């Protein structure tokens, strides 16, 4: 509890988490408003309200990566390890606090997006009347939290803001999709790439939509909903375990 409280004080006494949180909400909810506002009357689905989650995801990962890299930049990571020589415990506490904050931001952004769609198009059917609908909305926070764990791991390994953010952005926005271009095996590899699988957890097989295009693109992964979540979580925690092991051995 002491360590969690320590990390909570550290996180909330600087401004960047608040800016990132606001930006995430603005991007996701704004996008939901844009999509619903421009859909023809009668159209729209729960999935379509969550279009913006893909744009909030990079901002969330920036927030999480910065929570580590700014500590390296300003030397407070050394002060932290000096106060808490058990580095694994200190870093796990940090991860827990950041992931929890991100989970909350994710839920607010998802329900905010869904809410604004309801407000703009009261006539459309945005009722959460299937488990797929529920996962579509509530799952955003979970995916964000796990993505934050990945970003923290990368931040710990790279230790520089620019490097860590560039790596996360290039991977998330380009590399996974570019892998599909490899002839023959590209699509098979892509099926198992973590962010594609995370997308599978959120969007499911698209059966809760009116039309396939009625929402963000579907994932090519063929895992079941919960297996997809477990796969993404395992990826995130393996990354974190590697990062903590490296940090423990390295000079601070």
């Amino acid at each position, binding site marked *: 509890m002491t*360590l969690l409280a*320590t990390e909570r*004080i550290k996180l909330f*006494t600087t401004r960047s988490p608040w800016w990132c949180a606001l930006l995430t909400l603005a991007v996701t909810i704004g996008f939901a408003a844009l999509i619903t506002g421009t859909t023809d009357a009668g159209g729209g689905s729960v999935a379509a309200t969550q279009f913006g989650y893909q744009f909030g995801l990079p901002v969330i990962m920036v927030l999480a990566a910065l929570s580590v890299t700014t500590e390296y930049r300003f030397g407070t990571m050394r*002060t932290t390890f000096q*106060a*808490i020589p058990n580095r694994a415990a200190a870093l796990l506490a940090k991860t827990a606090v950041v992931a929890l904050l991100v989970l909350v931001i994710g839920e607010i952004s998802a329900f905010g997006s869904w809410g604004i769609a309801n407000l703009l198009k009261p006539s459309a059917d945005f009722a959460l009347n299937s488990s797929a609908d529920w996962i579509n909305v509530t799952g955003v926070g979970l995916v964000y939290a796990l993505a934050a764990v990945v970003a923290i791991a990368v931040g710990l390994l790279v230790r520089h803001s620019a490097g860590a953010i560039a790596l996360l952005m290039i991977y998330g926005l380009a590399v996974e999709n570019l892998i599909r271009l490899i002839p023959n095996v590209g699509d098979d590899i892509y099926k198992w790439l973590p962010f594609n699988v995370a997308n599978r957890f959120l969007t499911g097989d698209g059966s809760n939509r009116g039309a396939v295009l009625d929402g963000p693109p579907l994932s090519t992964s063929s895992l079941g909903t919960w297996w997809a979540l477990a796969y993404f979580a395992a990826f995130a925690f393996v990354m974190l375990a590697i990062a903590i092991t490296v940090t423990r051995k390295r000079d601070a």
Partner: protein
Amino acid sequence: MIEATSLTKRYGKTLAVSNLSFTVESGQVTGFLGPNGAGKSTTMRMILGLDNPSSGRVTIGGKSYHELKDPLRTVGALLDAKWVHPNRSARAHLAWMARSNRLPSSRVDEVLETVGLTSVAGKRAGGFSLGMSQRLGIAAALLGDPEVLLFDEPVNGLDPEGILWIRKFMHRLADEGRTVFVSSHLLSEMALTASQLVVIGKGRLISQSSTKDFVARAAENTVKVRSPQLPQLRGALEQASARIAPGEDGSLIVSGMDSEKIGELAAGNGIVLHELAPQTGSLEQAFMQITGDSVEYHTGLEIEAEQVLETAVK
């Protein structure tokens, strides 16, 4: 008490600290002296468990840093005053440190008061001057009311007022019975602050002794002699194996022999002396002599500076 045993740190091919052993006793200020790049900061980071030694070990009161429970209560350190998030207030910076070691938040206000930062406690630390940052760093070091305090070059870049403040503060801490270990590359500063000295150069121990002994040994004392019977005197001195260098306006600069001996020698040989003046070299000069070859990065400028110094002496 801090005890280092054959401490070694290697970065790739560079040996930053090599087989370094020393002890720092409690209740006094111990200076950690060496030129820039001698391995002082690396050693301090190893004491705090931030860097892992390549071999050897260092203990605080018999325990390694990792074994300390709530370490800020045992060891306080100021390694770099800029290790603060610039957008965090001074109070918030101390607050999270206090929380991490289960210290009451009242301690934060106490240490802010001690270093005189109470009025700016809510201001962002990024806007602090170097002197204020240094005070904040000292406040952080004092947070857990520790028995052992480490300071790395605390007076670097400070104005005279700040230097005086830190100097007095160190003495106060030692008078309270704490172990104070403070590094510097300035012997003159250490001569005023520390009662014991651990001197290193190029990562190796050069000496561990009391400051008084070190200064006495370091400052090579020379004697200026003038005499109308210079050739005889020179001969007598050479026979007694003193080193002689020509001084200005026909005087001799004698080293390796004190003024009493020279006077007795002159009297014994019936030589008249017009001047017999002991001269004390500057501490910095002496320090350079002792650490001589152990400066990590020699530059042409340094050699030039040495030459200027030498001609000034002559």
